[in-house]
């Protein structure tokens, strides 16, 4: 026993080294499974405030781009106003709300204060949190396209899993024929993603539009994802893999909208009931 202790004391650096490496790797592997993460992240106050202060400075240098994107969006929204649409008096007017006449989606504007694009798993930090009504699993979009989904919220900050994250999942559809597929990011180019498991896409052309699908549960349907650059058939299965250029420029996102899906809870509860009942 004595010699055992003296052995440990003599080689304490090796044991200390192994212990610290074990702790680090434990953090790595528990963190990757982001829902079980327990230790403070950049949604905590210290790092969040540093990023926020920096964001305040940086804002001034991007006013021109921000103005441009706001003007574009304003004009797009103006085009959707009732006055801008010529209604055919013979047919009934088009309704934008759901069948029961309630608001289906609402949008919370937020500012990006932390962002990365060159890691294999990228996250975005926003300057709003649970105090402003943001909860986990909300979709995040910009006026140009999709951004990601909220994975962690503190009272004044929230962290978004970017589309540029290897674990990001979303079902999408090709606009012209509604062929469904699934987004997967390979972790290399911040401007392109793959759409996998597309069955029977029909005739495709470069530049075809890809939109969010109807069944994502958190993203509103028909939000722009990107445009097709090339595609090929997956050998060994009947599926096609598409390479898509993202419409969102992840290097330059500054203002985003967090999407609240008002019927999300009801839908989840119903779907979980079916899964639990094990039909």
């Amino acid at each position, binding site marked *: 026993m004595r010699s055992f202790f003296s052995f440990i004391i003599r080689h*304490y*650096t090796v044991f*200390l*080294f192994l212990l*610290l*490496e074990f*702790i*680090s*790797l*434990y*953090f*790595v*592997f*528990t*963190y*990757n499974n982001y829902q079980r993460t327990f230790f*403070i*992240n*950049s949604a*905590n106050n210290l*790092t969040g405030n*540093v*990023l926020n202060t*920096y964001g305040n400075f940086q804002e001034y240098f991007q006013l021109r781009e921000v103005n441009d994107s706001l003007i574009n969006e304003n004009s797009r929204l103006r085009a959707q106003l009732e006055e801008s649409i010529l209604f055919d008096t013979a047919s009934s007017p088009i309704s934008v709300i759901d069948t029961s006449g309630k608001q289906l989606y609402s949008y919370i504007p937020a500012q990006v204060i932390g*962002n*990365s*694009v*060159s*890691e*294999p*798993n990228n*996250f975005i930090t926003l300057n709003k949190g649970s105090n402003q009504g943001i909860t986990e699993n909300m979709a995040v979009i910009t006026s140009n396209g999709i951004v990601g989904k909220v994975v962690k919220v503190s009272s004044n900050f929230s*962290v978004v899993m970017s589309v540029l994250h290897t674990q990001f999942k979303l079902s999408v559809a090709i606009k012209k024929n509604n062929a469904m597929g699934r987004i997967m990011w390979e*972790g*290399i*180019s*911040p401007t392109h993603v793959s759409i996998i498991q597309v069955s029977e896409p029909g005739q495709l052309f470069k530049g075809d539009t890809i939109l969010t699908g109807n069944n994502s549960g958190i993203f509103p349907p028909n939000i722009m994802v990107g445009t097709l650059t090339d595609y090929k058939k997956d050998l060994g299965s009947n599926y096609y893999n598409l390479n898509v250029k993202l419409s969102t420029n992840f*290097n330059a996102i500054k203002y985003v909208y967090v999407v609240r899906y008002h019927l999300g809870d009801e839908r989840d509860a119903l779907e979980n009931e079916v899964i639990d009942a094990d039909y």
Partner: protein
Amino acid sequence: MQIINWILRIIGLAFLILFQVLVLNKLNVSTYVHPYIYPMFIILLPFNMPKWLLLPLAFLTGFSMDLFMLTGGMHAAACVFIAFIRPYLIKFYTPITGYESVSTPSLSELGVVWFTLFTITTIFIHHSIYFLLQVFWLNDIGYLLLKIIFSTLISTLLIVIFAFLFSSRRVRKKL
């Protein structure tokens, strides 16, 4: 004197981390180039530092980086590893004259060549572990190797420039 030295070191570390988070991480030059300069803090620690202090200090350095970058413990793992092999590297790179009058790995007293070699080896090991943990599977080994090599070169260049800037004018003349 010792205390002033340590205060300067901690201020230096805070500067390195802020520079890393607010400048380098936002550059996005290419997916192959992602430099990390904060290991400079570990490189510049005194030679005779006891290991029971060196290893936890390296862990904390890496972990503070992890908090900013949301990387779990990847930086901590890489930092603890370079702290562990540091004494062996120091022994391996012993100059002919030995380390008699030198207490820290400084650019001025050990020369640019020694400092660059020591830095590039440390950074190469740090980046290899970090990028390996980050990618985690080896299906694209060419991409991984190129990323490690390019990032190591840029990081080393930046660290040597920083070490040069922080040394006093008297020392700069001597070089």
